[in-house]
Structures are given as structure tokens and as C-alpha cells.
């Protein structure tokens, strides 16, 4: 075990995968010589050669299309989309091709690709360096969507995603790359060095998809979150003094429905927290599922804390970003209701 930031943990996962499997390769914009704008592919080209880690043209659709073709041949390509905001030019390739290939070909071809991309806000990135597109992918049958919240999970989930034979969208909460962030933006930056989940094995290990983690046990209300919002929700729970149970979904497809239902049936209350815009966001699906399966156990309405239904506004970062105060207030409403 060593202490790693999420960037180092992801870099280690890629390095381990490339060492173990000669059919894995990494490409994307600026990932080669430079090592990626967030340094996640740092030194991979030096270690594994330009053949296995190289820069790609600025063509997200082409990057994913090329990866699908490589996957069909038998490789396991891992591509980086520089920001999740820029994954949309590849949306058709992901939805119409990667997600459908196995099904429509009767199992003759499939796309064992991993698409890594930093997502989410909290970095004053403005409209096009801050968005959270997970709901768009969750709706697509044939895709898996994974969102880690800490270095240990990030490495284990990424290795699982790479070894998975289905296409995986791997959303990396960029605000957590170099330290945990609980939304208290006016306080000193924290580092992963002081966080238990910053302890990461150097070698190979996996964290399964579809298994949520209970970050905090509690009896009063179940809080569902993923990515950066896991830390924000925890802060909001602490401030509220409410004995909430916090579940980190870790992957939204596959979704760990059993853990969710078991917890809500125990607590009788539920709050869903995500960064993405609220309307038709993934919180809608979570709310519907919980409501369908826990109706008679619910003592108050399932609540949602999410981004507003606006583009991500540069100057209003902390008015848009759903911080701990909004979580606390929602928890209180949920308990009172």
C-alpha cells in the first residue's frame, strides 16, 4: 500500500493493465508524450512506448470509432476524452455502435472498450469544463457507467472496467483528482494523504461493478450519491447532525438496487444527490426505483439535491454547485416531512 491521489491511482491502474495485457493500449488528446492535461497518463508513453500510448487527433467520434474497431479485432483500447463536456461528438458512436454491436451481431462482435473522461464541476471551468452527463449514458442499454469517489475505488474500478467485455464509460470526478472535496470551498484544500481511501495497493486488484459502498451507516435517512457528491453529502450529513446512511453507488449501470432498497426500507426516507442538472437527471430514475420498491416503507417524500436546470455558469460556481448546505437543508426537510 502507498498513498496515492486519484490521478496517481488511475495512472497506476493503466500502468498495471498495460503490463499485464499486451492487448491494452491508451490513446486520446495529449495523453502521449505530455501525459494528459490532468497527468493521468503520465509516463505511460515512456514506459510502454508510443505504440501503446499515443496522442489522438481532436476528433472524439473518431477516437471512439477507432477504439471500437480495435476492440472488434481483439484489443482492449482505453481512450481518454479530455473533458466529459467533449464526449458528445462521440455520443453516436457510443450509443449506436459500441452499445449495440454485441446485440445486433448476434454476439459475433463486441466492443470491450473503456472510455475515461473527467467530469463535474467545482473548478471554475465554466460551461464546458464542468458538466455531468451520466444520465445520458444511463439511458442507453448496452453501456455501463462507472463513477469512483476515491483513489482506491478509482484504481480497482478502472481495472475492472478495462477487463470488462462490454463498453464502459468511466467518469472521473476531476474535482477529486488531487484531494477529497466536500463542497466547503472556503476551507483549506484537503489531500488524499489524510484519507483512508487514499491508501492504494501498487499491484493489481479489482473493485466489482454494481456493488455500492456504504460510506456511513445510519438509521434516519438513506442518502444516495456518487463521485464528488459522496464527499459533499457526507459533509452535509455531518452539519445536519442527522443519523443518515450514505451510499456511494460507484457504478450507476449496473446499479446495486439491492443495497439501495434494503437501506431505504430500513430508514424509511431517502435523499438523492447529484451534480448534474435536476430535470431528467439520474436522480429521477433513482427516485422512481426507490418509490416503486419502497413505497409502503416511505415516511416522507424522496428528495433530490442537484444542479439547477441551467448551463454551468462560470461566475456562479458555488450557487450552482449543490454544496453541503443544500444537502443539510434537504435532510432537515426530509426528516420534518
Amino acid at each position, binding site marked *: 500500500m502507498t498513498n496515492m491521489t486519484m490521478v496517481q491511482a488511475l495512472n497506476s491502474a493503466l500502468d498495471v493493465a498495460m503490463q499485464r495485457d499486451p492487448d491494452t*493500449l491508451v490513446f486520446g488528446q495529449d495523453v502521449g508524450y505530455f501525459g494528459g492535461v490532468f497527468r493521468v497518463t503520465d509516463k505511460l508513453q515512456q514506459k510502454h512506448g508510443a*505504440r501503446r500510448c499515443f496522442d*489522438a*487527433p481532436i*476528433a472524439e*467520434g*473518431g477516437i471512439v*470509432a*477507432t*477504439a*471500437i*474497431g*480495435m*476492440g*472488434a*479485432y*481483439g*484489443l482492449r*483500447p482505453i481512450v481518454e476524452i479530455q473533458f466529459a463536456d467533449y464526449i458528445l*461528438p462521440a455520443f*453516436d*458512436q457510443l450509443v*449506436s*455502435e459500441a452499445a*449495440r*454491436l*454485441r*446485440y*445486433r*451481431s*448476434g*454476439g*459475433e*462482435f*463486441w466492443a470491450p472498450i473503456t472510455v475515461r473522461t473527467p467530469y463535474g464541476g467545482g473548478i471554475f471551468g465554466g460551461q464546458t469544463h464542468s458538466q455531468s452527463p451520466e444520465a445520458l449514458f444511463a439511458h442507453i*442499454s*448496452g453501456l*455501463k457507467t462507472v463513477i469512483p469517489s476515491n483513489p482506491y475505488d478509482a484504481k480497482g474500478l478502472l481495472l475492472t472496467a478495462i477487463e*470488462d*467485455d*462490454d463498453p464502459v464509460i468511466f467518469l472521473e470526478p476531476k474535482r477529486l483528482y488531487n484531494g477529497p472535496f466536500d463542497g466547503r470551498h472556503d476551507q483549506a484544500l484537503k489531500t488524499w494523504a489524510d484519507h483512508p481511501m487514499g491508501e492504494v495497493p501498487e499491484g493489481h486488484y479489482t473493485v466489482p461493478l*454494481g456493488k455500492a459502498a456504504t460510506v456511513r451507516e445510519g438509521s434516519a435517512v438513506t442518502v444516495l450519491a456518487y463521485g464528488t457528491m459522496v464527499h459533499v453529502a457526507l459533509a452535509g450529513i455531518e452539519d445536519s447532525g442527522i443519523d443518515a446512511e450514505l451510499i456511494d453507488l460507484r457504478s450507476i*449501470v*449496473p*446499479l446495486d*438496487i439491492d443495497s439501495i432498497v434494503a437501506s431505504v426500507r430500513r430508514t424509511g426516507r431517502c435523499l438523492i444527490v447529484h451534480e448534474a442538472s435536476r430535470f431528467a437527471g439520474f436522480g429521477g430514475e433513482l427516485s422512481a426505483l426507490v418509490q416503486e420498491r419502497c413505497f409502503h416503507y416511505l415516511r416522507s417524500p424522496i428528495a433530490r439535491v442537484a444542479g439547477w436546470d441551467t448551463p454551468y455558469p462560470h461566475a456562479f460556481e458555488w450557487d450552482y454547485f449543490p454544496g453541503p448546505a443544500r444537502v443539510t437543508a434537504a435532510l432537515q426537510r426530509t426528516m420534518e416531512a
Partner: protein
Amino acid sequence: MSNPTKLSLHVPAPHARPGDPVNFDHLVIPAAGELRCPDIATPESQLRDLPFGLIRVLDAEGRAVGPWNPSLDPDHLRRGLRAMLLTRLFDDRLFRAHRQGKTTFYMKSTGEEAIGAAQSLALNATDMCFPTYRVLSWLMARNYPLIDLVNQIFSNEKDPLKGRQLPILYSARAYGFYSLSGNVGTRIGHAVGWAMASAYKEDDKIALGYIGEGTTAEGDFHEALTFASVYRAPVILCVTNNQWAISTFQGIAGGEATTFAAKALGFGIPGLRVDGNDFLAVHAATDWAARRARANGGATLIEMFTYRAAGHSTSDDPTKYRPADEPKSWPLGDPIERLKQHLILIGEWSEQRHEALVAELTEAVRSAAKEGEAIGTFGKSRPSTREMFEGVYKEPDWRLIEQRRELGV
């Protein structure tokens, strides 16, 4: 900088619409054998005239002439003729099957059979083509079982694609035929990725990606060309310019301004323009590009200049937007007739043998159709409904298991 002329919007229109006389006068058709055939090692900078020429081998009399003459042995040519004929006859029968309500959809490749057939025979068994829905002759040339085609078209119990896919959107990995989809253009980049993978593995396989001339307008085409050029992928990218995209003539895809082969010039790769109804020319150009690719010379773009003689699909009536006699007036003729004429001319074929072959293949198609009908036409027989829930992922998750249970299958 004041403006003398008022601006006006130019909207391209074809030379003839229904009611107009057929008009192909604007087509410049160089004589067979005219265009030079450079060595495969020639740098692209010395090939920039090729996209504006037209590679033709068979002349009006059916002689094979000029530097592109592949001098293939007669058996090879007869295999090509057989594949083209089989495609034509199969298309006609299954198109009728749709009219008879035996399937929901069908698309013919009538007039374009030389392309898939010659390329299938020019490339190796281990190479992979990334087809459009109009290269059935690729499979015919590789003796793909007719019954599997019929079963897929009928979506019956024996459908190799398990009832999941629209008729004719085949997948045949063992025959070097990648999975088709209704979306056009989205697989051209897969061909490039597959070829890059082959190069990555220091393998010797190459890829062939097809795209219709109308679909070259999609960004996918440009991105595929970019990756193919940048990483020198061993891939042949083939634009089948059959003049039409449903009701839209090739001018709306840019054909009024230049050739489709000229798109290669923007990527520094060779661009060949080929008479797509000339089996020998298609074979020769494909072989040239394949040898260049296998020698690490990278990608070649080939425009197959041809004509869509039938309607776009069973949903289409081409007499609504082009003169009814346009197909038979196509100046480059019919690929089957032209190869037949050549074989007869060189004394390797005869009307009698041709009739016998037609009879044999007609029977082969008939019996495959009958066999498929016995299993069941569309709606009469189909795979287990469970197949609807299989193959979404390698393993179904709880959603699919619950939903299958809810449906009670």
C-alpha cells in the same frame, strides 16, 4: 468592397427528373486503358492526377486493355461472374419475397455487384470488410450459405442474428464481413481502428471500409480518413458512388464540385477513381491498394464509379425522382454483361454455359428460399423471445432478468 452582384443561394439539381430525357452528357468517360498505373511505392505527391482519371480495363468490345489489366486466370473471373449472378438472382427473388409479405424489408445491389465480388476475391480470407448494405456480392464470392441469408431476412427461428436485426443487416465474422447497422457511415472508422489493431499486432491483415457517396458527407468519413492518414493504417476506404442517395443525387454530397476520389488529396493518401461496373478494374485497383497497405504504405481511398440500378429499398420508388429509363442508359453498362462479354471474347465462356449457370444459380436460390420458407417466413417462425433480452451485455443485469420475468419468457 461594395458588392456589384447580389448574392444568391445555389441548390444543386440533377440533369434529369421524371419526364425529362435521360441526360448523361455531362459525364466525362475516358477510354479504357488510358490511365497510367504507377508503382505501389510511388509517394502520394506524384499521384495527384489519379483522382481525376478513371481506371478502366474492359473496353466496349470486352477486351482487357491497358496498364491496370490484372490478367487474372479464367477460373478467378468465372468465380466473380458466378458471385455477381448469384447476387442478382438472390436479390430478385428476395425482393419479390418482400412483395409477398415474407419479410419486412429488402435492399438490392443491382448494377453494383462487381464491387463486392471483385474485392472479396482480391483480398485474403483473413482480411475484414466493413460493409454497407449494398455489398452482398462480397458474401456470395465467399460462398456464404444462402440459407443463412434467407433465415436472417425472414427473422425466423434459424436467423443467425436471433431476430434482433432488420433484414439484410448481416454479420458474418468468419467470412470477413463486419456487423451492419441501419446507421450509415458509423462503421467506416471501425475499419480504420481494426486495421490499426492489425498493424499494432504486427499482423498481415488489412481492412476494407465501404461508404456510399451520399454518406461521405458525414463527419465519420472525415475522421476515419484522418486516423487512416495519421497512423498510416493498412486500410482501403471505398466510396461506392452509385449516383444516388435515396432520392438525392450525388451533387448534394459534393459531386458537382469535384470527384469523390479527390477527397483523398486532403489527407495525403492516394485516391483512385474506378469504373465500378468493370470487374477487372475494381479487382486491379483493390489489389494495388492492398499491396500498398501490406507494404506499410498506408491507406488508399477508392471511388467506385457506378450506378444504383434498382430502387433504394423496398420502401422506395425511384421513378418518382429520376427518369424511369436512367438505369438502362448508364454509359458504363452492366457489370455482369461486361464480364460475360469478356470471358466469351477470350474463349473462356459461352452463352450456353451462361444459361446453364443462370439455371443452376436460380435453382440454388429457389431451394434456399424454399428451405427458409419451410422454417418460416417473417412472423411465422422466430427465435425464442428470450433472445430479446440476451446479448445486451455479456451477462444480463437485474433489469433484464426482471423484465424477462415480467414478460413471462
